[in-house]
């Protein structure tokens, strides 16, 4: 048996990879299975490759980072809606600021257009000066 093992023609490594990937023809695959059963060195080689592939298969998959303004997410242009006040600027994102700005604008507009009620102050005529009386 030992003599027989020494004369087994070892397949080249490329075939071992194909064998493990299930890419060998059925006949070649069966032959190789038989050879592996007879040759411990070959068996070790195949087992080592199989373990390596298994480890690589189970390497953790890395997720793409999700960012709010990521180029990947936001490349398709978003439609602007009036409700999105502060959309363009990070600093004006708070609704309080936006609300304050709106109220202030409304007050200024109202003052400009004279919508606000007039004050009760009455302007009295100026007192007659001596010069005015002398002319008379």
């Amino acid at each position: 048996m030992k003599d027989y093992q020494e004369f087994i023609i070892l397949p080249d490594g490329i075939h071992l990879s194909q064998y493990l990937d299930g890419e060998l023809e059925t006949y070649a695959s069966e032959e190789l299975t038989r050879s592996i059963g007879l040759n411990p060195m070959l068996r070790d080689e195949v087992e080592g490759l199989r373990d390596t592939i298994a480890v690589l298969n189970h390497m953790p998959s890395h997720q793409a980072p999700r960012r709010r303004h990521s180029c990947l997410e936001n490349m398709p242009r978003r439609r602007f809606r009036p409700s999105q006040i502060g959309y363009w600027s990070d600093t004006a994102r708070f609704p309080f600021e936006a609300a304050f700005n709106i109220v202030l604008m409304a007050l200024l507009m109202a003052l400009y257009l004279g919508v606000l009620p007039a004050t009760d102050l009455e302007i009295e005529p100026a007192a007659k000066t001596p010069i005015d009386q002398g002319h008379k």
Partner: protein
Amino acid sequence: MHGDRRIFRELVRLYQDRIYNLCYRLLGSEEEAKDVSQEVFITIFRKIESFKGTSRLSTWIYRVATNHALNRIKSMKRRRYKQTLSLTREAVERRANMAVFPRPDQLLCAKQLELYLQEELGRLDQDQRTVVVLRDMEGLSYQDIGQVTGLNAGTVKSRLHRGRTRLKEALERWFEEQNERVTNERKAEAG
């Protein structure tokens, strides 16, 4: 145009993790992978009309991504970018923490193993690394790898096998070192 954007958004959703992971494994750097994967999607958006349908869409996307990553490796070499393929230890540990393993000792082992394997991947020849990543991490068939890389079937097989063999040897070294370390620790505890 609006429909195109909707389809593109769906493409991004479907492929962003796969493309990022591919770039990360080829480049070994999170920052570079992020940058390149964005470039990949911009290219896809601009050149989707050049996709003839002779291969699957996923194969075409992988080809775009692989070309971008390999170009980036070349440009990094030109810039003598020393951090290429040397993943920072913190980044690996952070990522490994996200993987689900049932026991702390397994988690620790997985962290170390991922760090080690990523470094060994970086030491592989560029073509071998590409083929190994596409086959053993992304699960592409030999035929698809040929279409992505433009290599014939025989070259794909030989590069894949050489890459795997080098990684197998590296893994054997790693396991030997681990066994030796455990044995020494037990001896120290007993002594």
